């Protein structure tokens, strides 16, 4: 599970992959129409799509002869929540600091 998490984190660290996610958040698209938005070679875009699909940020769906890529909003939400436990840890420490110092002051 930890490895998968890291993969998701690394997946969204790449600017091309972030652009792909933005495109697909607006509408589902085929690999061809996604590639048409980039100057890079189509195999490069395919590789990005593969990485994003492997870490479940994208889902594939067959429609007739075409494969459409969909944005997986649920998975993206998990990534957004990634920082929350770390933030909470600090929040708890700081709340404690505040309480201790308020008591210290009134002594």
């Amino acid at each position, binding site marked *: 599970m*930890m490895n998968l*998490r*890291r993969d998701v*984190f*690394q997946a*969204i*660290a790449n600017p091309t992959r*972030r652009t792909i996610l933005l495109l697909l958040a607006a509408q589902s698209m085929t690999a061809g129409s996604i590639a048409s938005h980039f100057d890079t070679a189509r195999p490069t875009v395919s590789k990005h799509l593969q990485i994003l699909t492997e870490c479940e940020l994208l889902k594939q769906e067959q429609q007739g002869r075409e494969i459409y890529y969909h944005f997986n909003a649920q998975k993206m939400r998990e990534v957004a929540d*990634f*920082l*929350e*436990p*770390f*933030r*909470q*840890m*600090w*929040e708890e*420490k*700081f*709340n*404690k*600091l*505040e309480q*201790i*110092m*308020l008591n*210290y*002051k009134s002594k």
Partner: protein
Amino acid sequence: MERKTNLTAPDGKQEILIERIFDLPLNLLFLAYTKAELVEQWMGNKVIKWDHKDHGSYQLETIGESGNVLFRANGTIHKSIENQQIIRTFEMENSTFPVQLEFLEFESIDNNTSKLAMKIVYKSVLDRDEMLKLPFARGIHLAHNRIQQIISNLK
């Protein structure tokens, strides 16, 4: 509960920014970071060594119930300017995490409110991301506790 602590970890950068507004005058906030007996209380660690001055150093540890060391960390104080700034390092002993560099900026907002802005710089982006994941298991545990609490309130 009110969210008073802001945390940002910009994509592809090896740093974390943490900001917090305290309902404390500036001098008390700064004191909480410089007096060993106070650090012990809010950090929840035992202070083994505490020499808070320029080029001084510190060491903290947590001992488990059976007397084993659960956590030990140390660092050096590069610079400390009263009620303004602390620049220091932090390193967890017996871990794979490299030492990190911390910039703490203290600021008064009014007589009873102050702000801490903390910038933590890691050796690499990957090191930062690994560090961010540390409290993850604990976060899940907290969520589980909350669910239990909600369920028991329903009874």
